[in-house]
């Protein structure tokens, strides 16, 4: 009877012996908390020492961790906006590339000019760029790409090209004609869309129905996908003939983890060299304190907000919204939940680091003023239970929060505390993500109305990155304001935000957005609490030249190119 058990015991004993004799974790408990004094970086600067890896000595391999697979990483298969799109763009090039300040710079298009009213863009295509299979990149590839995305009209890149009427080739130029002026065309389209090789994609008629393998991944970018293990890893080899110069990192190995706990464990034990996901605030100091690890930190454009249903009582009363805005202590939230790793939210929506930010709309925290406002508007606590009433009912609301975001749950708890001080009772309802989405944005179509009173919400970076998208959040017409989840509407806001979408003159545009910020701060369609920083951990001994692009972070081809090749 005993013989049956021999094998598993043997296996386990072997493992135990092997584990005990093996290399112990070199990083374990050798560092103390004291010493990690790397200050958070300002946008654009990395905190890397100036010693770059020796130029041509040993090949530099960087192992990066991501959480969640990204399929075959071609324009029709990658899964997430971040880091999927970022990894996609290591293999492909766009016509323009964001620099560290987040401004689009010429890239595949060595010069970009437009007419006065921004309805026509002339792109001069760079000479000498080649595809990974050796073929030259020509204007025809660019025209083909535009036509392809327009014809196969679903997906992010097709949406980027909405409004494009004509694409013509003239010598070495591509001329793009738009139906209406698009002041953000460079940011939204030219710096976003990967250029596809005509000779590979012209045979793929219906990309939506296709099953792809990595042989399709022919791009012009600094990296070529040479190996792909589904849900496990990707190997990206440097393209030595890259038109901007050979990349500084010879091989990028991207490893898929099931969750961030695994990725964090891996970087601490030295099994990966960088994590391509944002690190949570409480990890920042801990990781920084561990010797070869460093943090690159800077402002990013995701937002944490409070949404309310402005079409329902009492949120339709401006006094109530304003009082909530005053009662909220944004600094406290940044200090307590984000441990300082966030920028205080601007009531005008626009991020303080943007050139068009209006400093006049700084958030104010004034509990006394909030109370006075509520009292003045007639919301009194008649039965002395600490909760004010409206229309005979207590001001007691549920704040829906998605349970998978623990930082957001803590924010909601703090909001509950802060609003209790002014007599509004907020109960935090932790719900599953799908349920939460369904309540706030039923079927992702605002035509379906709203099923919530208050909710914790947030938008992803691209919404903030393109400032004129504010119209999508606040315009009352569903066709324009399709991200207007609070049901807000105001005639002046409508006029200005709509005008912004097509204003070609940059001075006028700036003045419009300045006015709009003031209006939004006055009208409070939502309460913007904070913009969490992006913090990325990397092993400075393996590779340290990560470039932090304002609003986007370190995950881009720019980080892996030598300094001379960067925009």
């Amino acid at each position: 009877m005993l013989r049956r058990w021999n094998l598993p015991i043997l296996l386990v004993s072997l493992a135990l012996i092997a584990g005990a004799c093996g290399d112990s974790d070199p990083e374990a408990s050798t560092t103390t908390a004291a010493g990690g004094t790397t200050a958070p970086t300002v946008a654009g600067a990395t905190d890397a020492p100036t010693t770059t890896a020796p130029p041509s000595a040993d090949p530099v391999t960087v192992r990066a961790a991501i959480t969640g697979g990204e399929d075959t990483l071609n324009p029709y298969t990658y899964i997430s906006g971040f880091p999927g799109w970022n990894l996609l763009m290591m293999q492909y090039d766009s016509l323009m590339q964001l620099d560290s300040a987040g401004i689009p710079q010429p890239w595949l298009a060595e010069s970009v000019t437009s007419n006065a009213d921004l309805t026509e863009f002339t792109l001069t295509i760079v000479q000498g760029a080649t595809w990974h299979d050796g073929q030259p990149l020509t204007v025809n590839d660019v025209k083909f790409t535009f036509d392809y995305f327009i014809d196969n009209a679903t997906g992010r890149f097709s949406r980027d090209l909405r409004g494009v009427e004509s694409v013509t080739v003239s010598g070495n130029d591509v001329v793009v004609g738009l139906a209406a002026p698009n002041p953000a065309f460079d940011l939204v389209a030219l710096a976003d869309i990967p250029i596809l090789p005509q000779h590979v994609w012209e045979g793929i008629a219906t990309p939506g129905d296709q099953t792809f393998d990595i042989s399709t991944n022919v791009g012009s970018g600094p990296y070529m996908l040479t190996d792909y293990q589904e849900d496990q890893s990707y190997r990206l080899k440097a393209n030595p003939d890259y038109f901007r110069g050979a990349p500084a990192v010879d091989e990028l190995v991207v490893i898929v983890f099931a969750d961030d706990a695994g990725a964090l464990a891996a970087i601490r034990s030295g099994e990966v060299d960088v994590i391509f996901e944002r690190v949570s605030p409480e990890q920042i100091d801990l990781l920084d304190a561990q010797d070869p690890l460093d943090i690159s930190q800077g402002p990013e454009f995701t937002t944490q907000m409070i949404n309310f249903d402005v079409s329902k009582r009492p949120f339709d009363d401006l006094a109530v919204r304003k009082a909530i805005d005053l009662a909220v202590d944004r600094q406290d939230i940044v200090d307590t939940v984000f441990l300082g790793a966030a920028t205080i939210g601007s009531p005008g929506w626009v991020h303080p680091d943007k050139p068009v930010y209006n400093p006049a709309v700084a958030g104010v925290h004034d509990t006394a003023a909030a109370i006075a406002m509520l009292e003045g508007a007639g919301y009194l606590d008649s039965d002395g239970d600490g909760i004010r009433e409206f229309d005979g009912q207590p001001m007691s609301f549920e704040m829906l929060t998605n349970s998978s975001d623990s930082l957001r749950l803590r924010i909601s708890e703090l909001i509950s505390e802060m609003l209790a001080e002014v007599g509004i009772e907020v109960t935090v309802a932790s719900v599953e993500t799908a349920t939460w989405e369904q309540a706030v944005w039923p079927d992702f179509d605002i035509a379906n109305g709203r099923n919530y009173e208050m909710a914790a919400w947030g938008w992803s970076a691209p919404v903030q990155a393109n400032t004129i998208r504010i119209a999508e959040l606040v315009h009352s017409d569903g066709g324009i304001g399709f991200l207007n989840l609070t049901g807000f509407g105001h005639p002046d806001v409508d006029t200005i935000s709509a005008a912004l979408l097509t204003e070609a003159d940059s001075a006028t545009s700036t003045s419009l957005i300045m006015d709009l910020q003031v209006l939004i701060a006055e009208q409070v369609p939502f309460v913007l609490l904070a913009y969490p920083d992006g913090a990325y951990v990397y092993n400075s001994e393996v590779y340290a030249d990560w470039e932090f692009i304002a609003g986007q972070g370190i995950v881009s081809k720019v980080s892996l190119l030598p300094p001379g090749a960067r925009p």
Partner: protein
Amino acid sequence: MRRFGLRRLDQYLVVFIVAVSLNFMLPRLMPGNPLALLAGVDVGLMTPDERAEVIRQVGLDAPLVSQFFDYWRAVLTGDLGFSYRSGRPIGEMIGERLPWTLLITGASLVISAFFGIIIGAFSAWRRGKKSDLTLLTGMIGLQSLPSFWLGMLLISVFAVQLGWLPSFGAVTPASDLTGLAHVRDIAEHAVLPIATLTVLSIPGVYLTMRYSMLEVLGDDFIRTARAKGASESRILFGHVARNAIAPVVTFLAIRFAFAFGGSVIIETVFSYPGLGRLVFEAVSRRDYPVMQAAFLVFTVAVLLANLLADLLYPILDPRMREQ
């Protein structure tokens, strides 16, 4: 005997039909739908027509009844379908994860069975004495440990503090190990999950074995053997254990079947790529096909195990055979 088997069989069939039908209903009862999963991150930017098209492409716009029939047809032909998230054939996905689940649950089952049976038998033999009492208290104590807490502690001690073992995953990521090095890598990663599962499984086996042994020990059957002059240990191992083993086998069979549902908690704590995590994520994302396929595998496994246990029990337990 044959009549017995057949009757049980049709009861199992009924249970199977009801359970599988419920498995179809359950995902659709949840609020929300797979739209976000199917359409991807930019779902909010799509037009209603685009969204409707996405739903239509996976057949979710068909009337519920026809979806139900399609589901049953798939079940009966063994077609597990494709994931909404990745578009991969689910059979492949389950095939990838099942071995890892079976590795840790199988190993822990075997080890806990070995120790549980021996210690349980010993405890029953020393019933009432100090050793029995100590063992009993200890085992009840082990059973009261929260599984994830134990796992987290083991990671903190053995992986983080001492650095002896890796703290996550089934293998070292993106390593090109082959042969013995690969086996060693797998073993290193499996030690802590197996240890956790084993510690938590031994008490169950122990208690079942102990109770079963005590029952058998009271039988005239054994007194007869004693009277015949057989030695104590011969009685213990020869007669008692063999007769007491039946409930333990049943217990183990059912335990093994539950392994096919994966062990979500252990897999979460150790980031181990098993079935439990697959199901958890599928449920959170409303990946209906994966949910349905995983539920189906689980239901079939449990029913088969029950059936097996029912058929084996009389063979193993000579007392039942007499009845």
